[in-house]
C-alpha cells in the first residue's frame, strides 16, 4: 500500500481543520508542479496530500478599494491573461511570459510559488517590488505578512504547518513604469541565474521613486534598498547608473552552484540593473 494518503477538502475551513490535525504530516498540493517532481526525487515522503485545488475561496482576481487581491490558486497563465494584473500590477504580469513554459504555466500557481520559497522563484520577485502582502489563514486567525518577511530563507517561509496561503494583495500601481528581466540559460523553461523586477516613477529622466527586487542573488529574493536610496532624486545619467551598478553588486549575496558562480551572478546584478533602467527610460 502507498505510504501516501490523499484528502480533498471541500472548503477552506475543512482544509484548515485537516492541517491542524495532521501538522507536519500534511503536504498541501495545488498545481503540483513542484510537488510531483519532488515526490519522484524522493524529497517528499510518506505524508497526506491535502488537495486544495477545489477551494473556490482561493481562486479569482479582485479589486477592493485601492488593493488588488489575487487568490493563491491563480495560475501563472491566469495572471498573464488578467487585464487587472496587466494594468495595476504590471511587473507581475511581465513575469508571466518568462515563467516556465506555456504548458507548466497552465498548472503552476502563485501560492505554490510563494510557499516553495525558492531563491530563484520568479513569482516572488515582482511581489517584492509591489510590496505585496501574503494573506495566510489558520483555523484560529487570518494574518497578512509582507512578502519580505514571509521569505525567511532558501525553501523556507514564515508559513506554519497549520496555515495555508489564501492569496496575495498589493496596492494598485499605475504611475510607475515596470520592467522584469530574467536571465536564464535559455528563453523558456529555465531557472533564473538572476532576475530583476524594477518599478520606477520618473520625472523626465529624474528618479522620483524606485523599487528594485532581485531574484537568485541572495538566500531569498531581496530588495536592493541601498541602490534604491542612491537612485532616488537623481537623473539617470551614465555616471549615476555606473555608481548604482557598483552599489547593487555589493547588495547581491549570491551562491555558486551548478548554473553559475558567485562572481558571475554578482556581475549579472549590475548588468540587469543597467538593462532594466534603460528599458524603463525607453
Amino acid at each position, binding site marked *: *500500500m*502507498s505510504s*501516501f*494518503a*490523499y*484528502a*480533498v*477538502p471541500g472548503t477552506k475551513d*475543512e482544509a484548515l*481543520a*485537516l492541517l491542524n490535525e495532521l501538522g507536519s504530516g500534511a503536504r498541501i*498540493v495545488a*498545481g*503540483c*508542479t513542484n*510537488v*510531483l*517532481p519532488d*515526490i*519522484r*526525487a524522493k524529497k517528499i515522503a510518506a505524508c*497526506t*496530500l491535502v*488537495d486544495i*485545488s477545489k477551494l473556490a475561496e482561493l481562486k479569482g482576481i479582485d479589486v477592493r478599494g485601492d488593493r488588488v487581491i489575487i487568490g493563491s490558486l491563480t495560475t501563472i*497563465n491566469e495572471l498573464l491573461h488578467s487585464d487587472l494584473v496587466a494594468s495595476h500590477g504590471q511587473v507581475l504580469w511581465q513575469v508571466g*511570459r518568462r515563467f*516556465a*513554459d*506555456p*504548458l*507548466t504555466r*497552465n*498548472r503552476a500557481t502563485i501560492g505554490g510559488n510563494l510557499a516553495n520559497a525558492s531563491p530563484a522563484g520568479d513569482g516572488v520577485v515582482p511581489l517584492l517590488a509591489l510590496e505585496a502582502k501574503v494573506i495566510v489563514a489558520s483555523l484560529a486567525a487570518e494574518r497578512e505578512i509582507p512578502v519580505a518577511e514571509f521569505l525567511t530563507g532558501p525553501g523556507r517561509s514564515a508559513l506554519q504547518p497549520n496555515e495555508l496561503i489564501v492569496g496575495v494583495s498589493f496596492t494598485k500601481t499605475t504611475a510607475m513604469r515596470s520592467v522584469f528581466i530574467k536571465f536564464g540559460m535559455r*528563453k*523558456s*523553461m529555465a531557472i533564473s541565474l538572476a532576475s530583476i523586477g524594477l518599478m520606477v516613477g520618473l520625472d523626465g529622466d529624474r528618479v522620483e521613486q524606485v523599487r528594485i527586487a532581485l531574484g537568485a542573488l541572495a538566500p531569498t529574493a531581496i530588495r536592493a534598498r541601498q541602490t534604491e536610496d542612491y537612485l532616488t532624486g537623481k537623473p539617470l545619467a551614465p555616471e549615476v547608473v555606473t555608481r548604482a551598478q557598483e552599489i547593487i553588486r555589493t547588495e547581491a549575496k549570491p551562491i555558486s552552484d551548478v548554473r553559475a558562480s558567485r562572481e558571475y551572478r554578482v556581475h549579472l546584478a549590475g548588468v540587469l540593473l543597467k538593462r532594466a533602467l534603460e528599458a524603463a527610460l525607453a
Partner: protein
Amino acid sequence: MELQNEITVSVRINGTQFTAAAAPEESLLEFLRTRAMVMDVKCGCNKGDCGTCTLILDGQPVKSCLVLVAQANSKEVWTVKGMALDPLMQALQESFATHGAIQCGFCTPGMLVTARSLLADCPQPDRAAIKEALSGNLCRCTGYKKIVDAVAAVAACQASARVQGGRCRVWKQQ
C-alpha cells in the same frame, strides 16, 4: 475527513469513461500508461522538463506527469489519438510528415497536441508565437526548424481556407 491510501479515479479519456484504483501520489501520466493503457502519451522525463506527456485537460494543454491523477478525477482528457478524426489535427500530422518534422518521433504526440491547441486558440500565429507555444516541448532530433515550418504551413493553409469558406473546421470537444 477521510484520508485515503488508495483512491478511485474516474476520467473521461478520449470520450470514453475509464475508472480504476490509483495511488494517492500517482500522476495522470502513470495512470494513463499503466492502468488505462493509453500509450500515445509518452513518458520522457517524468518531471516536467520534456513535454512528451502533453495532453488536453479541462480544455488546456498540460504536462500530465505534473498532474496528480486524483486532480483529474471526473474530468475529461484528450490525447493525440482521441483527435485522430479532427481535421486540424490531421492537417498538422500531414504537415509534420511532409516537412520532415519527425525523426525518432518520440516528441511528436506532445508536439502535435500543443500545436493543435495553439492553432485552435490563435489561428494565425507568427513564427515567434509558434516557437513560444512549443517551448515546453523538447525535441532531441529535428532542431525545431522543421517543426515550426510544419505548424506555420498549417496556419497559412487555415488562413486561406477561411478565405475560401472555411474548409479547415476547428474540432470541438464533445
